[in-house]
């Protein structure tokens, strides 16, 4: 009904290839974007600062990870380490007076270089072996940060992010931080949406489906895997830097541990491999839901005046959250994105569902 396709006629290649051919979806995206731009006026500071902002940054990061897992089909267990490289490079650069714009690019570049150097060795293996060798990247980076005081910032292992300007605007107010994250997230989203229309994207998908077959049709699988690692490392590095400068305000090793890598992986898998909207949903699920469930449970317990011990109360959200993850993966193993697609397909044909094959 909403997603009416009648009346859409492709009169040129440009129209046929546009990102959102269905008018309703163009409206949807436009309205969402307008809402996102107006968010600092519409939302209370709590939700803007501690929900919207991390959500956008992590979505950008998850999209980078999705590029390598969902598009190129290569496991990556050390994505937090890649983000850490970016975060530390940008922080050190900015502390030495490098302008923030260059520091961001530098963050991406360092992450790309280290990520690719590592990929050259890691890509000699595939599947679970690759997963383990990327996990090694995580541990190596963790160890280096802990062991080199010049990187971690001495005994306190905390480096404060200095105040910075982006294109002449000080990144200090909540709104300016939010817009920085929003612009980055929109840029990465645009890149990912366009990826499927490019030769690079198709080559990556070919490598994902079967790298031998890709080689037979003339796709150099090693080269494209390397490109995937490099690109996703760049996105991860910049996202890590933005996370530190707009959200944390200081960089510490705990922000990028193995746990965080696994969380990032969960965001991509629960969201849906190879899906852009899936990354948004997956991040919301993994990052924001635990806090929201905890708040809801606590409010409920206070309202009903339940005499529950604080320990039990603190563990109930964890329990619920675990059940939710299992339920989602049971009912829809392809991730949250599939639920969205099903819903969209249903509406697309409604009320003539029988015409669906």
């Amino acid at each position, binding site marked *: 009904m909403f997603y009416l396709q009648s009346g859409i006629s492709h009169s040129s290649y440009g129209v046929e290839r546009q990102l959102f051919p269905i008018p309703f979806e163009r409206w949807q995206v436009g309205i969402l974007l307008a809402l996102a731009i107006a968010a600092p006026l519409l939302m*209370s*500071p*709590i939700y803007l*600062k*501690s*929900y919207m902002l*991390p959500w956008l940054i992590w979505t950008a990061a998850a999209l980078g990870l999705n590029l390598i897992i969902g598009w190129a089909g290569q496991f990556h267990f050390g994505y937090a380490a890649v983000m850490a490289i970016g975060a530390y490079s940008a922080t050190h650069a900015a*502390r030495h007076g490098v302008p923030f714009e260059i520091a961001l690019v530098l963050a991406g570049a360092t992450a790309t270089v280290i990520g690719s150097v590592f990929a050259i060795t890691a890509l000699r293996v595939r599947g679970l072996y690759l997963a383990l060798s990327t996990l090694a990247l995580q541990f190596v980076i963790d160890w280096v940060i*802990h062991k080199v005081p010049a990187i*971690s*910032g*001495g*005994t*306190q*292992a*905390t*480096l*404060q*992010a*200095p105040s910075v300007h982006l294109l002449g605007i000080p990144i200090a107010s909540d709104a300016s931080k939010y817009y920085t994250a929003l612009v980055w997230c929109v840029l990465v989203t645009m890149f990912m949406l366009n990826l499927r229309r490019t030769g690079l994207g198709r080559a990556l998908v070919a490598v994902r489906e079967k790298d031998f077959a890709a080689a037979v049709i003339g796709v150099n699988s090693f080269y494209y895997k390397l490109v995937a690692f490099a690109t996703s490392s760049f996105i991860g590095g910049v996202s890590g830097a933005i996370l530190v400068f707009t*959200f*944390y*305000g*200081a960089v*510490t*090793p*705990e*922000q990028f541990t193995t746990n965080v890598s696994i969380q990032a992986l969960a965001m991509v898998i629960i969201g849906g491999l190879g899906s852009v909207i899936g990354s948004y949903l997956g991040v919301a699920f993994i*990052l924001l839901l*635990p*806090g929201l469930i*905890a*708040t809801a449970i*606590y409010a409920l317990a206070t309202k009903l005046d339940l005499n529950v*011990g*604080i*320990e039990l109360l*603190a*563990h109930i*959200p*964890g329990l619920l959250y675990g059940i939710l993850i299992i339920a989602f993966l049971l009912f829809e193993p392809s991730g949250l994105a599939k639920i969205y697609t099903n819903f969209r397909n249903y509406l697309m044909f409604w009320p003539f569902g029988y015409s669906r094959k």
Partner: protein
Amino acid sequence: MFQRLKKALGIAAISLVAQPLLAAEPIKFGLCYDLTKIYSFAAPQLVQAERDLAALVNSQGGIEGHPVEFLLQEHGNEPQRGIECYERMKAAGVVAVDTLSSPVSRALLPRVMKDGIVMTQPMVGRSDTVDGEVFKWVFPIGATYWGMAANAVQYAKSQSGGSLKGKRIAFLYIDYPFGQEPIGILKELQKREGFDLGLYPYPLPGNDQSSAWSQMRRAQPDYIIHWGTAVMQVVAAKEAQRNGISMSKIITTPWINDVDIANIGPDLAKGLKKVAVFASGSYVPLLRKIKTEVYGKDKGNGDIKWLGDKYYNLGLASFAPVFEGARLALKNYGAPLTADKLRKGMESIRDFNADGLMAPLVFSEKDHGGGGKTRIEMYDGKAWVPQTDWAAAYDDLVWQAVKASSAEYLKTNK
């Protein structure tokens, strides 16, 4: 019938509305705690203690007539959720927050410094925050890890007859920022006192310490200063026994509690020493008061068996000085209590020992730690027995380290 119902409903409505009006506006304190992950061994007892303390204060008419209230939220030791919790607490109007987590308190530091809300961090977070001139809003109540390590060395010195020349001190630690923190100060002390310092790290999560201990068996140190928590204490005790090293050589952190002792076994733990920031056990007058006034009237917030537990007392020690600061603030600057007044109130605390629970604390604009006094306590098989008086050793060295570190912070945060 209807009339009666109407009347009853009316009364109920009035009493619902009137209730908040009767009592003075409560003073709110925020607890952002990790109740499910790595700090879950301590957090529940802390909350119990803090709520009991609030109940005690409220039963005595509150702080200068204002009731106190704790808001609690869980953050699972994740910086991101800690920040969310802090923002919620800020919106709820708390004057002080406590995090009980180094990662989270580090993540909150930039925000606290900007927003101007008091953050307490007893035994967690950056040590250099005792420098009140730089960290205006942070109160790391009690001694810093640097101060504790210095006090442990001072004890070793007094045990060795006033000189450590030629003595061997081993520093056994978890290879993680928490464990690495005292290394700098120990190296400075080594220069001053002339002892041999051996560093023996063991990796996270601390279940495997065998290589560190077999190295120590070869080195035969005279004293072992151990920086670890929870399971690490138990593993260390077992390793000490296995390597034939006497428990009486070990001086450990204040993080060891009754559960750890029970896991080690009271007999084996005999002779173990720790640096204490506050008194253990329930013989303290404040705890006796809580027993009669709170638990005696069935208003307790948990199991009475935890009274006197290390972490229970830590909970009291975390907030007793804050309440005292609030009292002074209300007395000197009047209601309503703001974070700024609370900070000034806490800075004016002089010789406050929370009914015998802590060393006499003296805060000032410069010193947000309260003087950094600790004492050495020894486990005698039943209880912790104080071995020394409350004292702060090598104050100059500790402050030198604090100033060097806080100057570094200041450099990037002009």
